[in-house]
C-alpha cells in the first residue's frame, strides 16, 4: 500500500514540478523529486523485507516520506512553497542520519550522534529561525534554485535581524563541517574495520561519500562567493552542482547495491565453502573453511555437547561462547535443540544471509562428522566381532581336537590295553582270536579318531606351531612342497591357524587343479608388525576372470580377513598361482591378551 502511495506521490511530484515556471531546471528537478520519493521508499521497502531486524529500511522509508511535503516546494503559492523549503531543513538531517546509520540501521557511536546533533542544532534550527524571519526563504538544494524570483516567504513573522546573514553563514559552515565529518567518519570506519565491515562499507558507501563531499564543496563555494562567481569558477560550480544533484538522487541505490552484493557474496561464500567441503574437512578444519570466505580470521566454531551441557570446539576443548569486543554470537539450532555456535565479527550480524550460510554449513559438517564417527565405530565393532568369531571358532576346534585326544582316544587305548591283558589270560584259541579281532577294531577306531582330530585341528599346529605344522603338511602332501621359514616367529593361535588353513587350502587346490608335475613353495616371513606368507605353485594357473572365486578362495579370504589381514591371489593361465597374504600382529599387551584367551 505504501508502494502505491509512493508511486502516486512521485507522479504528483513530477507533474507539479514540471508545471512550475519559476524553477531553474524543472525537468531535472522533476526527476530528482520523483526519485526522492520512489527511491528511498522503494529501497527502504526492499531493505526491510530482506533484513527486517535492521532499521535502515524504516529510516529510508521515513526519508522518502519527507519527499512528499517536499513536493510543495515546486508550487508557486507562497505558503506551500515555504513549507516545502522548510522541509529541506528536515531532509538534510534525515539524509545524514540515513547515511550515518548505514549499514546497521543504528547510530551506534558517539561521533555519529554528535554529528547529527550538530546538524540539528547548527542547520535545522537556524533553518527554522530563518523561516520566520527571512523575507525570501529560498531552496538551498543544488538544482532547486529559482530562475525567476521565488515565491515570497509566507512564514515570515518578524523582520530579518541584523545577524541574519551571519546565521546563514553559520548554518552553511555547520553543513560543511558536518558533511566533512561524516565523510571522515566513513573513511576511518573503513580504514580501521575488519574485513567484513570493509566489505559492507565498500559497496554501499561510495555514493554516499560522494554526496557528502559534494555537499561540502557546494556549500563551500557558496560561502566563499556569496555575490556570484567569477568566470573561471563557474564551470567548477556547474560540475559540483550536477554531481551533487546526481549523488543525492543515487545515495539509496548505493544501499540497494550493498544489499544485493551481500546476497551475491553469500552465494559465493556458499560455493567456496561447498568446494572446500568436497575435500571432506574435519570439524577442526571447518573453522578455517569458514574463516577464509567470510573474511573473519577470529571466527570460532563450537558444538554443543549434550553429555556435559557445554560448548566445545573441534579439539574437544570447552568453548566459551561469550563474544569478545567487536564480536557477536549466532546459535545454530537443529530440531529445536542447540547444535552449533559461531562467534564472529559483529559486522556479520548485518549480513544475515552470510550467517545463515555459515550456520547451515556448520550443521552439515557436524552431521557429516557425527556420521563419520558412527560408521567408523560400526566398522570397528564389525572387525572386532569378526575377529572374535574366528577366534571362537578356532578355540572350539582346538577344544574338540583336545577332547577327542584326551577323551575318546585315550579311552580307546585303555580298552586296547585291557583287551591285551584279557588276551593274555585266555587260553582258548577261538576266544583269543575274537579278542584279537576286537583289538583290531579298537585300533581302527583310534586311527579314525586320529584322522578326524587331525582334520579338525592338526595337533602339531596346536603343540608345535605354524612352521612345524606346515612342514608336516608338506611331508604328507601328494605333491612336492617346500617350506621356507624366513623368520616368521610365533603368533597368536588365531593367526597361525589362519595361515595354516590358508596354506592347506592352497596346497589342496594345487594338488587337485594345477595339473601334473606341479610343485608348491611356501615362504613364511615377518615384516615389522606383520607376518607374511606366500604359497606359489608352478602349475597351470587359474583363469581368474571366469566369474567369482570358488568357495575355497573365499574361505581363505574370510579366514585371513577375520584376523585383520589381507590376501592377494595372483594367477594366470600357464603362469601358476600364488596366494600371498599379510596379517598384522598385535603388539605387546594386546598379544598377551590374545594368547591368554586361547
Amino acid at each position, binding site marked *: 500500500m505504501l508502494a502505491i502511495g509512493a508511486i502516486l506521490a512521485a507522479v504528483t511530484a513530477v507533474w507539479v514540478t514540471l508545471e512550475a515556471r519559476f524553477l531553474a531546471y524543472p525537468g531535472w528537478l522533476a526527476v530528482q523529486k520523483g526519485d526522492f520519493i520512489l527511491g528511498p521508499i522503494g529501497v527502504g521497502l526492499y531493505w526491510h523485507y530482506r533484513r527486517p531486524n535492521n532499521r535502515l529500511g524504516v529510516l529510508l522509508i521515513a526519508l522518502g516520506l519527507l519527499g512528499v511535503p517536499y513536493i510543495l516546494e515546486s508550487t508557486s503559492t507562497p505558503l506551500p512553497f515555504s513549507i516545502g523549503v522548510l522541509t529541506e531543513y528536515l531532509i538534510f538531517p534525515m539524509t545524514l542520519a540515513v547515511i550515518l546509520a548505514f549499514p546497521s540501521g543504528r547510530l551506534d557511536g558517539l561521533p555519529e550522534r554528535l554529528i547529527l546533533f550538530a546538524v540539528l542544532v547548527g542547520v535545522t534550527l537556524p533553518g527554522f529561525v530563518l523561516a520566520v524571519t527571512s523575507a525570501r526563504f529560498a531552496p538551498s538544494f543544488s538544482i532547486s534554485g529559482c530562475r525567476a524570483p521565488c515565491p515570497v516567504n509566507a512564514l515570515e513573522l518578524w523582520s530579518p535581524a541584523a545577524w541574519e546573514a551571519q546565521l546563514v553563514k553559520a548554518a552553511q559552515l555547520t553543513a560543511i563541517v558536518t558533511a566533512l565529518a561524516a565523510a571522515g567518519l566513513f573513511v576511518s570506519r573503513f580504514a580501521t574495520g575488519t574485513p567484513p565491515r570493509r566489505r559492507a562499507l565498500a559497496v554501499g558507501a561510495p555514493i554516499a561519500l560522494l554526496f557528502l563531499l559534494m555537499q561540502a564543496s557546494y556549500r563551500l563555494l557558496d560561502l566563499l562567493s556569496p555575490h556570484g562567481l567569477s568566470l573561471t569558477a563557474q564551470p567548477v560550480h556547474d560540475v559540483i552542482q550536477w554531481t551533487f544533484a546526481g549523488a543525492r538522487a543515487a545515495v539509496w541505490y548505493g544501499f540497494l547495491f550493498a544489499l544485493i552484493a551481500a546476497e551475491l557474496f553469500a552465494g559465493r561464500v556458499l560455493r567456496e565453502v561447498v568446494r572446500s567441503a568436497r575435500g571432506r574437512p574435519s570439524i577442526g578444519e571447518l573453522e578455517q573453511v569458514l574463516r577464509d570466505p567470510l573474511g573473519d580470521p577470529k571466527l570460532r566454531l563450537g558444538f554443543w555437547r549434550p553429555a556435559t551441557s557445554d560448548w566445545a570446539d573441534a579439539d574437544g576443548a570447552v568453548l566459551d561462547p561469550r563474544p569478545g569486543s567487536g564480536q557477536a554470537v549466532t546459535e545454530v539450532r537443529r530440531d529445536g535443540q542447540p547444535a552449533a555456535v559461531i562467534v564472529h565479527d559483529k559486522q556479520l550480524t548485518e549480513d544475515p544471509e552470510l550467517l545463515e550460510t555459515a550456520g547451515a554449513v556448520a550443521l552439515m559438517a557436524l552431521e557429516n562428522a557425527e556420521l563419520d564417527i558412527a560408521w567408523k565405530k560400526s566398522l570397528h565393532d564389525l572387525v572386532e566381532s569378526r575377529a572374535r568369531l574366528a577366534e571362537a571358532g578356532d578355540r572350539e576346534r582346538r577344544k574338540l581336537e583336545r577332547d577327542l585326544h584326551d577323551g575318546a582316544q585315550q579311552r580307546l*587305548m585303555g580298552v586296547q590295553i585291557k583287551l591285551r591283558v584279557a588276551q593274555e589270560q585266555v587260553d582258548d584259541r577261538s576266544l583269543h582270536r575274537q579278542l584279537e579281532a576286537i583289538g583290531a577294531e579298537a585300533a581302527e577306531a583310534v586311527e579314525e579318531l*586320529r584322522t578326524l582330530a587331525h582334520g579338525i585341528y592338526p595337533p*602339531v599346529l596346536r603343540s608345535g606351531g605354524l612352521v612345524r605344522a606346515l612342514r*608336516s603338511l608338506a*611331508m604328507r602332501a601328494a605333491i*612336492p612342497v*617346500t617350506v621356507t621359514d624366513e623368520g616368521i616367529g610365533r603368533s597368536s593361535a588365531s593367526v597361525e591357524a589362519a595361515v595354516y588353513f590358508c596354506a592347506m587350502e592352497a596346497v589342496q587346490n594345487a594338488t587337485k587343479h594345477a595339473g601334473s608335475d606341479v610343485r608348491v613353495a611356501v615362504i613364511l616371513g615377518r615384516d615389522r608388525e606383520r607376518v607374511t606368507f606366500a604359497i606359489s605353485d608352478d602349475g597351470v594357473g587359474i583363469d581368474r576372470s571366469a566369474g567369482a572365486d570358488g568357495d575355497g578362495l573365499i574361505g581363505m579370504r574370510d579366514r585371513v580377513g577375520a584376523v585383520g589381514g589381507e590376501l592377494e591371489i595372483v594367477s594366470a593361465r600357464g603362469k601358476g598361482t600364488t596366494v600371498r597374504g599379510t596379517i598384522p600382529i598385535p603388539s605387546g599387551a594386546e598379544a598377551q591378551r590374545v594368547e591368554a584367551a586361547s
Partner: protein
Amino acid sequence: MIRVLIGEDNYIAREGIHRILEAEEGIEIVETCGDLATLRRAVDEQRPDVVLADIQMPPTKTDEGIRLAAELRTSHPSVGVVILSQFAEPLYATELLEDGSERRAYLLKERVHHHGELSRTVREVAEGGSVVDSKIVDLLIRAKRQRQDSGFNELTPREQEVLALVAEGWSNAAIAERLVVTKRAVERHINSIYLKLDLGDGEQVSRRVKSALLFLAEHAG
C-alpha cells in the same frame, strides 16, 4: 638290567606302561616323573640307560620330549630315548632323528600294548639301535607313492618293502625273517636301494634309519 626312566603325566598311559614293563625280564623301572624339569633332574641323578618320555609334558605340553632328547645327545650321550606320542606325526620323528638315529625311537602310544613292542624297542635302544613306528613310515610311504617324481617309485616293490623296514629300524636278519627271504637277498636289496637313491652308507643299521626316514620324509621334490 636295563634301567628305565619314565616321563609321563597321563595316568592311564603311565599305568599301562608300568604294567607292561614290569612284567619284562631285564628291565627295571627306576623312576616315574610328571614333567620336564623333574625328568631332567632324574636323568642326572639316576643315570638311566633308557628314558621313556611322552612327547608332550608339562610345562607347555608341546614338544618337551623332543627337546629333552636333543639335550641328552650332548649332556648324556649314552642315554637312549624312546619317545611315546599320541600323534602319528612324521615331523616329530624326523626332528627326533635330526642329530642321528642311534639310541632314538619314536613310537605311537597304542603301540605300547602290541605284544612285546615296547620292550623290544627299549632293548633295541639300550643296545644303540633305533626304532620308528611303522605307522609313521606308512604315512610317509603313502605320500611318496602319490608323488610322481620321487625316486621311490623307481624302486621295485620288494625294494620299497625293504626300505620301509629299514626306516623302521629293523636289522637285516629281522628283515629277512619278516619277508621270508635270505639275509643275502636283503643285503643286495639294500645296496641297490642305497645306490639308486644315493643315500650313503647302508651298512650301519642304527645310522641308516635316519637316512632312510629322511629320504621318505623328503617333500621338496
